[in-house]
């Protein structure tokens, strides 16, 4: 769709309330002025833009205000950091690894070595996801190692208590492929070491007294002692087995308890979610009938406002959200990331303000009573009575309602507090919406500065719109 110069002149003439010939003449003068621009001498049209020569070619730089007004759909959207730089991540990971070291040094030196290796590796953004998965994979392995070390520790402790017999088992597990000759040498060494009362770990190595080779070489008295020792061993093994069987049972009980707790927490969470959903549903119904339209409705209306007839558009002119909280901005950007430019963040914040209306109604009495008349712009201002002589101005929109009665009530409440209240009507899909705004401002910056003076949540949840 394009508009020819003829149509453009007609529209301007209609808008300005002058004859088309006058507009045509002035437009031609403007074109002459713009095309006759010389290098280094740009031609600026206030509120529209600047024509200048760039590389011998005429170029146009849009005026800042016009640029903002054209981008009113995306007002409040700011760049969002979705991934921090690699240096920051490295720092975070190194911190994590350090904390991991502290916990792991006591139990498993082998896994420490692995963690040190991983800590020395450089992290690149592309490898981060892989590393995460690797780290996840390492965790169970480490856990297994922990369990192994724990079991070996336990067994070693037991061997300390039980003596030689149980130590043989430990050795068998540690060195299953050891030769008989080695065992013999060890047994002889062990017999001498026993007498010296060495530490328990060394005694573990002296275990294979019960092996067949050792039996052949030892005396009858020794064999009797061994038999007695083996009997003790069996008893202790039985006790160990029984204890080992009991331990997992206890663990299962704990798991069961944990499961029960998890179930209870889950049930409570589900109940809370259902409650919240129900409350939101009720609120929405109330809002639709009384105070505010739903978010979808508002978004639809805003899109329609841009696609309706020019007469309607003139009423629903581009709006700019002047200031907004970071949360709302991020939320806006997130909605934008999901649906690009279909959703309109301005309206999202608008509904937020409308929803917050009920809760902050009591705080509205705290509205500042100071007059917000702008210097050098008579007829404009935040407070006072509405100036009907102003044909076009900016207003701070605070509510968007489906009910005209509610909108009027809201406007009256603002009037009582001394504000110039404005109701901006627009239609979408046969539905009427009523925006309640405060103040009449000549420029966007004036409206911005005035909006900052509004009480919460209005100072953050609003947008500026041309009326």
């Amino acid at each position: 769709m394009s508009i020819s110069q003829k149509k453009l002149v007609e529209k301007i003439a209609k808008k300005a309330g002058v004859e088309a010939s006058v507009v045509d003449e002035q437009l031609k003068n403007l074109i002459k002025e713009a095309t006759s621009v010389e290098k280094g001498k740009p031609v600026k049209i206030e509120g529209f833009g600047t024509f200048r020569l760039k590389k011998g070619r005429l170029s146009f730089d849009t005026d800042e205000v016009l640029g903002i007004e054209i981008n009113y759909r995306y007002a409040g959207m700011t760049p969002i950091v979705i991934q921090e730089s690699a240096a920051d991540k490295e720092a975070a990971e190194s911190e994590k690894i350090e904390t991991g070291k502290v916990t792991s040094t006591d139990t498993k030196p082998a896994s420490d070595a692995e963690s040190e290796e991983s800590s020395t590796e450089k992290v690149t953004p592309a490898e981060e996801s892989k590393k995460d998965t690797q780290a996840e994979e390492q965790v169970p392995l480490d856990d297994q190692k922990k369990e192994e070390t724990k079991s070996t520790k336990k067994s070693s402790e037991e061997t300390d208590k039980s003596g030689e017999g149980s130590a043989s088992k430990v050795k068998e597990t540690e060195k299953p492929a050891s030769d008989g000759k080695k065992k013999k040498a060890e047994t002889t060494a062990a017999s001498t070491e026993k007498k010296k009362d060495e530490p328990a770990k060394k005694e573990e190595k002296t275990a294979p007294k019960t092996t067949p080779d050792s039996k052949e070489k030892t005396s009858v008295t020794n064999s009797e002692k061994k038999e007695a020792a083996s009997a003790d061993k069996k008893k202790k093994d039985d006790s160990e087995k029984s204890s080992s069987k009991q331990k997992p049972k206890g663990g299962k009980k704990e798991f069961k308890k944990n499961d029960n707790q998890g179930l209870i927490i889950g049930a409570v969470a589900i109940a809370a979610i259902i409650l919240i959903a129900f409350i939101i549903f009720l609120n929405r119904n109330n809002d639709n009938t009384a105070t505010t339209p739903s978010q979808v409705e508002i978004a639809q209306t805003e899109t329609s406002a841009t696609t309706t007839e020019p007469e309607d558009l003139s009423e629903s002119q581009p709006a700019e959200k002047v200031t907004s909280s970071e949360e709302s901005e991020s939320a806006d950007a997130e909605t934008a990331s999901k649906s690009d430019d279909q959703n309109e963040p301005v309206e999202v914040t608008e509904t937020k303000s409308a929803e917050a209306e009920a809760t902050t109604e009591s705080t509205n009495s705290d509205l500042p009573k100071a007059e917000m008349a702008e210097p050098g712009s008579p007829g404009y201002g935040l407070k006072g009575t509405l100036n009907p002589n102003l044909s076009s101005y900016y207003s701070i929109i605070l509510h968007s309602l489906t009910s005209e009665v509610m909108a009027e009530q809201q406007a009256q409440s603002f009037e009582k507090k001394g504000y110039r209240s404005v109701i901006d009507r627009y239609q979408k899909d046969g539905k009427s919406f009523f925006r309640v705004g405060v103040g009449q401002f000549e420029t966007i910056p004036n409206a911005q500065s005035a909006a900052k003076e509004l009480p919460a949540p209005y100072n953050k949840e609003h947008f500026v719109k041309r009326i």
Partner: protein
Amino acid sequence: MDDNIREALIAVFREELIKKKTIEVDDLGTFKTVHIKQYQKQDPSGDLVLMPPKDYILFTPQNK
């Protein structure tokens, strides 16, 4: 140019460009709105940043 006409011209341009219409001005050129979708970029600090969508006015001068 009178202020009244200038303001009307700006208002008409704004309305039409918001509606994604192209405005052809004889002997000057065409004005149209170009939409830039949201995109990701790496800022100087190395952070990956999601930039919001944006519209801008593209002016194409008329060839003489």
